[in-house]
């Protein structure tokens, strides 16, 4: 039952992200656009490249969708609404999200095409950049909660949300999750101007639909993860004398974070791969370590 609700929520979230993306990039707010697009995928012919690596080609988009849904399995929207409250929940999110790399590499290698392959390689480089920056802030968050249970992490923020407690960790996690979801400015692998669509380029029809859906669900999952780690999950406050139910708070926060993720990339050119790697390793990781140290000291004083 929980599973169905969460899956439905993910689908709805993905739909809204599609609408938002359309609005932000084209200035048209059309609620029906993703629906038309989805049915159009069904109606369009889908063809495969001439000599694909069949397994990888087919599995790539599906794995992307699966890993996003798996990561969402441990994310609580309300204290009771969680698919599975694993004892290692926070780490499980990271583990599931690693498969995004595998999925994109498959999608890059499978079609036997140069643009897709280069896109896949670029994502490999990007993973090396952002991987540490996802795990280390999670570590700091778990330190404060003294547990890896995601529900525990949310309740530990009762006094002060983590965004104020560990702003450095928030900034790093936010940037790293944008890189994981290959949103602009980290979208080298589906670069429209450079690689003519890159990893996405060789897919059409239903497979492209699944790929895009997977990406949207990934964005929603990452926004949800940011919310539970740093923005206090379902906890809210009195707003004009009203008290919104927990799921409404979750939804609102996730929506805000998603909008922020989508909006930021619009105002910047794509980052160069060399810079991404060098900045993440030379600046990002020391900052993440500093964050862990600072949080460690703070936890002793202010639990």
């Amino acid at each position, binding site marked *: 039952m929980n599973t169905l609700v969460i899956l439905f929520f993910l689908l709805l979230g993905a739909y809204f992200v599609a609408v938002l993306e359309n609005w932000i990039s084209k200035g048209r707010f059309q609620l029906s656009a993703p629906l038309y*697009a989805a049915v159009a995928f069904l109606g369009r*012919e889908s063809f495969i490249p*001439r000599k694909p690596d069949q397994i990888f080609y087919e599995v790539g988009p599906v794995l992307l969708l699966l890993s996003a849904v798996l990561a969402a399995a441990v994310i609580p929207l309300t204290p009771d609404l969680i698919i599975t409250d694993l004892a290692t929940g926070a780490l499980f999110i990271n583990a599931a999200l690693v498969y995004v790399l595998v999925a994109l590499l498959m999608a890059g290698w499978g079609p*036997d095409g140069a643009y897709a392959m280069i896109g896949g390689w670029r994502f490999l480089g990007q993973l090396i950049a952002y991987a540490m920056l996802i795990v280390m802030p999670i570590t700091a968050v778990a330190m404060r909660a003294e547990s890896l249970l995601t529900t525990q992490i949310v309740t530990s923020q009762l006094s002060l949300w983590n965004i104020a407690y560990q702003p450095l960790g928030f900034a790093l996690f936010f940037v790293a999750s944008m890189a994981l979801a290959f949103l602009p400015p980290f979208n080298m692998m589906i670069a429209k101007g450079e690689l003519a*669509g890159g990893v996405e*380029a060789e897919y059409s029809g239903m497979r492209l639909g699944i790929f895009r859906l997977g990406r949207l669900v990934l964005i929603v999952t990452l926004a949800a993860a940011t919310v539970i780690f740093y923005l206090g999950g379902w906890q809210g406050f009195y707003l004009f004398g009203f008290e919104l139910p927990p799921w409404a708070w979750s939804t609102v926060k996730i929506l805000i974070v998603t909008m922020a993720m989508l909006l930021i990339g619009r105002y910047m050119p794509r980052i160069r791969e060399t810079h991404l790697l060098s900045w993440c390793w030379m600046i990002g990781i020391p900052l993440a370590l500093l964050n862990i140290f600072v949080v460690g000291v703070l936890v002793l004083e202010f639990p």
Partner: protein
Amino acid sequence: MIAGARQGKMSVFKRLASFSMSQDLGVYVVPGTEITRAYGLDIEAAGMNIVASPRHASVLLIAGDMPAALCDAAAVIYAQMPRPRVLFSLTTSTTPELSPLPPADIIAGLSQQELVQGVVQLRKALAEGAFHSDVSDFNAPVLQIRIEYVCPMHPEVIQDKPGSCPKCGMNLMPREVQANAAHNHTEHKMESDDHSSHDHSMTHDTSVNYTCPMHPEVVQSKPGSCPKCGMNLEPQEKETEHDHQHMDHTVGEYTCPMHPEVIRSKPGSCPECGMNLEPREIEVKHVHQHMNHAAVEYTCPMHPEVVQSEPGSCPECGMNLEPREIEVKHDHQHMDHAAVEYTCPMHPEVVQSEPGSCPECGMNLEPREKETEHDHQHMNHTVVEYTCPMHPEVIRSEPGSCPECGMNLEPREIEARPDHQHMDHTAVEYTCPMHPEVVQSEPGSCPKCGMNLEPREKETEHDHHHTDHTVVEYTCPMHPEVVQIEPGSCPECGMNLEPREIEVKHDHQHMDHAAVEYTCPMHPEVVQSEPGSCPECGMNLEPREIEVKHDHQHMDHAAVEYTCPMHPEVVQNEPGSCPKCGMFLEPREPQSSHHDHTAMESGMNHDDSGFMSMIDVTKDLPRSGDGLPMDWLDVPFGPFIPGLPGGLLLTLTLDGDTVAAANTNTLVGTETLLCHAISANDFIEKLTALDPLTPNSYRLLACLTIENAAGIEVDTSTAKTRLVTLERERIVSHLSWLTLFAEQTGFDWLMQRASSLQKSFTQADVTQIINLKKSVYDLSKRLQRTPLLKSRTTGVGRVPADTELTLSGPVARASGISNDARSNNKIYRELGFTAVTQVNGDVRARLQLRLDEIKQSIELIQKANVSVNDTLAVSIEEPMDTISGQGQAVIETPRGQAQLQLTLDKGQVTSAQLQTPSTQHLLLIEQLTSQQELGDALVTVGSLDLSPWEIRP
């Protein structure tokens, strides 16, 4: 009914799907969004989404008129779009000429209003016609593919049939290339790129047969090679048997005699010169192009003595005469009648000293140089290959015909290695890369595997122990199994036997023919008792002792070790089996410390110097600059890739994601301005139509040149109006470039802002331009503050100031070369113009410079103070009929300096030469993109602001 409908019957669900597809329109713009912006169109506002790849698109939007080469490329794009697909053409003519594309489904004019109406029509057509019960496939000659075979280690060896590489003996691997190589304008592999017809299986048209031009009786339904002569099969329509019957209007094609690249399927006029198109058959295309109308004769295949200069029927048997080149001149240069013999192309053993017919097949004998003594001696050391005199890249190991032109291949020695010339025979030894123990003092072939020996400086004493000069045997380089003690001739081929040292003593003692077996170095399980070729990979088998235990006692060189060919790190002192793979260990000289030293000095892992090491196997392959060897791919970026100007074909050889080499070409540049005299006004119109991105600049240039020829001087107010026009075009062009730059770097906000500004400026008059000044300044300030933009562009694509190319325009000025044609102009000087420059010459400098130039242009327009009522059109008022003279003018177009020289003769322009800036800037690409990461390389190419339309090939 749309031409690109999908097969199916309209059920309820399909209707729903069609409706959704009509609402979700993905459009791919050809030749590019910069053209649509130049015409003032806004595609997003019309309701269509611009997509990055044709595979996500359902509408192909063709803006303006496209030259034939682009139509071919557009056909490839069209074939990649998933059905249902719609062809939407925006053009001023009523029936746009789009062959080989199908006729346009929706046609609209080149204005925003008509575009919007066209989109409405399109939606309706798609909703109703997306599925159709009877659809025909789309096929075009440009989509045909043929397979050729190349050697993985020697990419210059190309054959049409499977076989072995003459250099190393390995099996050739298949590779796909475009079939009409002589016809196409995009000559590169079609494997995995924007041009590849990945759905080739679907577009394969089964109603076309393939036949050999020389053997019309050979007919197949798939492309391939003629089994009789090896030539490529040409497509032929099913209805007829014979090529020549198609000389009628319905199925021929029409070409301009002066512009053979112009090809249409219906009679008409040449777009370049206006002449009537002449009919010509499709099938003999590739042969025909090399035939000048004066140098073709028609002959009967069965009666070669029947020769005519026009097509027709043979009087003896009635067959249609086939075209054949008259012996091309340059052949004769090589041939002296005394040294020429005549041979049959199909039966090379038939040799005569006079021309005649082959007794076996009746064909005319073709002349060929005699194998002179001189040649023969050189052919001792190396293997003979056959190459086409006109196409030196075509190489075969047997005599035959050139696939591109049909000429006989001439014999030639394999290219001697350049090293060969520099090495003195006394200080150099020749060794086999795969078998370092094989050492000779003269060049030859390795007796073990047949590869050519490489020269190498003499090694240490250590090696000499292994070569005992007194124990020498003589062997044939082509037949290594022929071995004699004395010099002589090879009984099999007659060549002189080469001396060769007997192998390392211990091997020799045991190399008894009865105790030796032959095995493949790459496939150790293949074992034979006689020499030959490996059935799996085709390499020569090497001899190897049958493992007998007692060998061990006879090994006098205690320093011999046994190593596994596949695992060079496994080393033992006794023979046996490799613990990792079970192969027999092969004897090998130990790596002396001397060896180790050289290996480590060159940075190689010393494990890799052994058998089948990657260093040796990839010896001939290129090396990457950063030391990380990755897959080398030839990737085309282009003609329609988003981010680069449409019509520019950029083929990058990528080493991983670094650019190793770049090859550029334009598909829309015009070569000849004039083929006959035209009136001055027509010339002005022609030059205006040259470059749709900057029409006014060229119009102005033409007017200035003609006025210069006529000696006319315009008055100040006209000059000022012209200044305003030129400067406005500069602003528009720079904003268009900015949009393209933003698209390339994924900077969405800038893309939208720049394109909306461009639209405002295109339609603005003088007062509006001045009002837009603030927006431009704001944009410039915003770009200064944009995060990541500086780091993206600083240091990338640095153009050196001291290059021998003549750079001009923003590209030059950003590097500090301050040349600007406007500095010499009176009016500009009066308004206080000084050229803006930047110092660094990288992408950031060019970006900054163009922004500064936009601001400067607005200032100039403001200062010029032209009245609002003056038209901003450029034209010549006075009649030109009686003017004669020579004129020249220089103008600073938005991209650089353009120069025009022309000759006027009584109002007619008789000759004209044009130099454009993009032609020179194109040559920069090669050096600027070398060793750059792909993204940087593309941004560099984009920052040069090339216009493929004005590039003169």
